[in-house]
Every structure is written in C-alpha cells, then in structure tokens.
C-alpha cells in the first residue's frame, strides 16, 4: 500500500473542501477501499475520514421519516442498523433482507449505506494488478472476456468490460425507485434517481457512477410505495452465507385479489450495474399472479443476456431465482 495523508473531517464543508483535491478518497467503513488499497488497486494519496460528520449533523447517520411516508437513510448509517430497523423491516423488507444477506456481521457493523452502494466489482482481474483490466487501467484490455468468467455479468456488458456489480442493497434500491442525495463542493444537495447513479461500462468501464470528483452521497431516500411492504430479496450463491450473489432478485408486488397491480423487479449478481427490469415489470403488471406469468417475466428479464464461456448458467439461474422470488412474495 502506498503511503497517504490522513485527514479527519469534522463537518461536511471541511470534508468536501478536502475531498476536492486530486487523488483523494473519502473513507467511512473502509471495508472496500482499504481492501483495494492493500491490493494497490486503489492508490489515493489523501484519505478524508468522514466518520465524525455524524457528530456535527446526526441526520447523516440516522434513519428519518420523510413527509409523504418515505424514509431517509443517512449515508453514514451502518448496514447493521438499517438492516434491523423496525420501520425498514415492516415497510421495506426487501431493503432489510438485502442488507442481512450481504457481507458478514462484522462488515455490516462497519460498512455504511453510502459506501455500500459505491462498492467496486469483485471481478478477480480488477483486483489483480498483474492482469490487464479496462476498469482499473483504461485501455489495457479485459482479461475476463476470454478468461475465467464464471462470476462475470450477462446483462449490461460491453466489449470492454463484463464485470459484475457485486452489491445487494443497490438491487433493492433500484427496484424501489430510491433517490440519492448528493452534495458537492458547491454545498448544495442534488437529487439523483438511483437508477441514474450507476452507468453502464460501455467504452469507459472506469466510470462507474455519475458522481463528480469530490462529491459525497449524504442520504438515500426510499419512496412511499404500496408494493414495498410486500417485497422480498432472494440471493443465490455458492455457499449458504457470506458470499456474493451468483444471481439475486429484489421483487416488490402489489396485488388486488390475484391480479398484479404494481410490480418492481431488480436483478443482482448478473449485471454490470444494479439492474431494474422494466421488461419483467411490464410482463407482470395487470396479469394474474401465476407461475406462467412469473416465467414470462423471467424470460423477458433475461432476453437480452449475453453469456460468456463460463457463465451461461447465470441466465438459467437468474430466471429461476426471479420466478421463485415472485412465487414467494405473492404467496
């Protein structure tokens, strides 16, 4: 790990000021950044510790009611505290479940909501500086496309990158249509639809979000949504716990009788960014909640999948995961 300057910021303005310098990273939980620094994948020369910001402004680490029935998750709230929050468990079970099925108890005590959604891919080539990787070193090539690509993505890929977005929470957030609150050096918050936060790799896999250098996520807003109470996160992985998703589904459904009035579908473990499937939602809304409907939705969700040598199984797995999630949530 290269040496760096460490600054502990006492308030948001100071953090944003310090964060505007080149080669600077904010650090909160540190569970992804420090890992990547040890691998020399991340090489910041300056670290701005933002853990103390919640002292000056407790809302940054709190969960608060929004007018109209939504909830605001402070960016510095820890995964554990959001996961077990009674309001989340009742009104947004998919969010709580996505957090409890992610990482480990220790990591959930450390990692923050803001950092979680910005976590980097676990593509083994991205993490290994001895191999080419367009995301880590633009223009160097992609080792995964012709390499061992069992864990790579089948949706949203490009000829430059097929790295999977690894997170769970973001899949729930994109399904629910959450909003990200972002603050930059100007000091003013801007609201970004969660679906716009992450970008497809395209020709520039090194660009992962629309955040500008020095900008900070301050909160994530969950909308009031009838379907959210009947929601579920289903995660399939190589072992029962403490592993990244091979395929996951975040589903929320609003039923009248057995007819689907509203449906939200997010997919994880299979795409280059948190994935919401408008195709699957269209195949569900207005239809009866039957296995036939769910299968049609799953086919629609994966219609655009482009598997590589080792990961064609993900197309089948993702469909089955989605069908099972929809079956369970509508039971």
């Amino acid at each position, binding site marked *: 790990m*290269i040496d760096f300057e460490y600054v502990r910021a006492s308030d948001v303005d100071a953090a944003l000021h310090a964060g505007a310098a080149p080669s600077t990273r904010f650090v909160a939980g540190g*569970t992804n950044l420090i890992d990547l620094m040890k691998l020399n994948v991340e090489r910041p020369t300056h670290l701005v510790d933002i853990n103390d910001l919640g002292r000056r402004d407790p809302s940054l680490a709190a969960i608060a009611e929004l007018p109209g029935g939504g909830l605001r998750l402070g960016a510095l709230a820890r995964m*554990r505290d959001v996961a077990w929050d009674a309001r989340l468990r009742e009104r947004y079970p998919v969010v709580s479940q996505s957090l409890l099925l992610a990482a480990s*108890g220790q*990591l959930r*005590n450390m990692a923050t909501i803001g950092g979680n959604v910005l976590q980097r891919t676990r593509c083994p080539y991205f993490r290994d500086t001895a*191999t*080419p990787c367009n995301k880590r070193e633009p223009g160097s090539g992609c080792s995964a496309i012709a390499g061992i690509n069992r864990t790579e993505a089948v949706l949203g890929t490009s000829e430059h990158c097929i790295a999977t977005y690894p997170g769970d929470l973001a899949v729930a957030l994109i399904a629910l249509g959450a909003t990200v609150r972002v603050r930059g050096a100007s000091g003013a918050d801007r609201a970004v639809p969660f679906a716009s936060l992450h970008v497809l790799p395209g020709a520039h896999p090194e660009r992962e979000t629309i955040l500008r250098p020095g900008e900070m996520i301050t909160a994530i807003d969950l909308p009031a949504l009838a379907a959210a109470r009947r929601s579920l996160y289903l995660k399939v992985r190589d072992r029962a716990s403490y592993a990244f998703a091979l395929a996951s589904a975040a589903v929320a459904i609003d039923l009248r009788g057995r007819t689907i009035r509203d449906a939200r579908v997010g997919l994880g473990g299979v795409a280059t960014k948190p994935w919401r499937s408008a195709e699957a939602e269209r195949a569900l809304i207005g239809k009866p909640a039957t296995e036939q409907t769910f299968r049609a939705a799953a086919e629609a969700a994966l219609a655009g999948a482009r598997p590589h040598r080792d990961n064609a199984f993900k197309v089948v797995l993702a469909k089955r995961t989605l069908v099972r999630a929809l079956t369970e949530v509508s039971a």
Partner: protein
Amino acid sequence: MPSKSPEAMRSLIDREPPACHSSCRAIEPGDDAPDFTVTSADGIPRRLGDFRGSPVVLAFHGAYWDPARAEYVETYNRLVASLGGVAGARLLEIGGAGPWRDLTFDDAALSLPVLSAADADVARRYGIGDEPAVFVIDAEGVVRWSQVGAMSLANPVAIARAISAVAAPFVDAPNDEAAPRLAWTRRDFVATTLAAAFALALRPVEARADQVAVLAPRPALRAQRVTLSVNGRELALDLEPRVTLLDALREYAGLTGTKKGCDHGQCGACTVHIDGRRELSCMTFAVMQEGHRITTIEGLASGDRLHPMQQAFITHDGFQCGYCTSGQIMSAVAVLDESWGPGDDDVREAMSGNICRCGAYPGIVAAVQEVRRAQASNGGGQTR
C-alpha cells in the same frame, strides 16, 4: 560473489542426476541452481548456464499439466504478464516456443524455461517429483526464491516480486564492489509501494550478506502519535496512517492474540470489539480508531477468570488448531448483543463471517448456544 570456473560449471552439468524422486532434498534458496540443457522448439540446445547475467525463472509444471485446461494457461499467461508489469520494465515482445519463452524488455532480456513432466531428469536434479514448482534464479546462478509442492503454479505476483528482488536495484548496497551484478539497472524500480513486499521476498536469504545487498531502511515519514484505548488502557503509538488496527495491535502494541488470517476482510480471524460492536481490525486504519474503545481477546477475561464464552469454547471443543479462535470468540460474544433468533441456524448465520478451516463449527455453535441460554436464564445480562 565469486563466479564459478568453467570447470566447476562443467562438473555441475555432467554430474549424474541423483537417483531419487521427491524424497531428495529440494533445491532451496541459497543453493546453486543445478545446470541442465533442454532443446527448444527451434532445435537449438540451450543451457541454463547460458543465461548467467540475467535472472531466470524456472517453472516445472508437473504431471498434471494439461495445456487444454484454461486455468493453467491462464496462470502461465499471468506469470509472463506480471514479470513485465510488476518488475517495472515494459514488456515489448514474448517470443519463442516450446519449453523456453524469451521475454524482451526495453532494456533487458529474460528467459523463462517451462519444463514439463517429460523433463524428469531435470526435476530430479532439483529434488522435486511430479508436483509443480517454481525457482527464481539470480544473475549469478543462485536460487533466490522457490515454491515447491503446491497443487498449482505459484502466484505470479509472488514470482514477480521475487524476481524483482533479485534483479532490481531497489536496495542500497554497502558499497559498489560488494553489490551484486545486476542485469537491470533501472533506478525507477524504486517504488515505495513494493518495498514492503520486497522485504518479505528477501527475508529468507538475508543472512547471505555476501550475496544480498542490505535493504535500505524505510523511513517512517508520516509516522504520527496515535493514542488508542485498548482493553481499558491508553496506548500511545507512533504509526503511519496506513498501519491497520490489526497491525498496530500485533506489531506495535504486542497484542498478538488478535490473528491475521486473510488480511482482506474475508475470514474473521482479526475480529475485535470497537465501542462494543464486533468489527474487523484488518479493514480499518489504527488512526481512524482514536477516540474509540477497543477490546481484544486479551481484554475479555477478568484476571484469571475466563469469560463465559472462552470457557464454553473449551468445554465444547470449539477449536482444533486455534488460529481462528480469538476471532470466533470475539465475534460470538458480540453476537449475543445483536438481534438474532435463538436457533442453531441463527447462530450459524450470525457467525458466518468467521471461517474455521478445521471445521470446528459444531463445537462453536454449541458453545455460543450454551452461553446464550445461560444469559437468558440469568435475565439476559450482558456478557461483557
């Protein structure tokens, strides 16, 4: 470093191979690399000795090598790529076929013989059997790094570091005459980021002062006073910001009860309590923990009286080798303050961030359950 006479070289080449397999002593760092001749695809026989003046990587791919298997090819390609990348030289061309691969850098050349199981005679000279093995040989023909007996080829990054260590002038020699002859003379090899890794690669051969230059001490430029509250005591340590809490505890504070397993947040061996919550000490910098209350395994017992969880791990055989145990116990104590249900499955899920390679999980679950039940019957009192 005295160079060998042609006679001595010839005697090395002509020496009968020892009539044994892996029961022979494997060639180790510090040994002279036994010479041998192989014929490359172009039909020209080439001796290892021809490459004096350049570092050489010798890779035995063993009996299980199957070029059709992608992971082996991948490993090999990564090895070649990393020798160019990590060593700091620009890889211009990879030529040659068959057992020898010639790597050409912008200012140096390097040969990489890859020997198959068919070269059993050469393998015997190196004291190895069917298993994959890698040797890094310096410009003087001395083995400086080796890995023998693993199921697959060595990590290419480790090999690259080893070869950098024998080839690159990142060290300051006591004087020029004592310095080894170096094939590469790129001053820009000096890279702070790799210094620690180099030190590690050099350690096994440090004693050979006549061959190995002295590692320049790495000044702790940004060390600053960090005060940590550990097990109720204030510890003042001079640390660089990049020192993790785990390393601060183990290497600076002498508290080695907290273990380093993976050092990447994947195993749980380094679990400590920070302000009463279980966290991973390898995934946070010590400087970030000023002002927080840290508890390690050393702080769990009251004098000679074990914490109930420590006692329960003993009672239920919750460990074999013990390496993960301090992390398991720290995690288990904190789990009982979290919101988990009472079942064995709840315990397994709650404890899934602590990996035990001995497979002592049944004992661990039993230990956690015993303490949980005892707490519940005592009215849910705290365990700390």
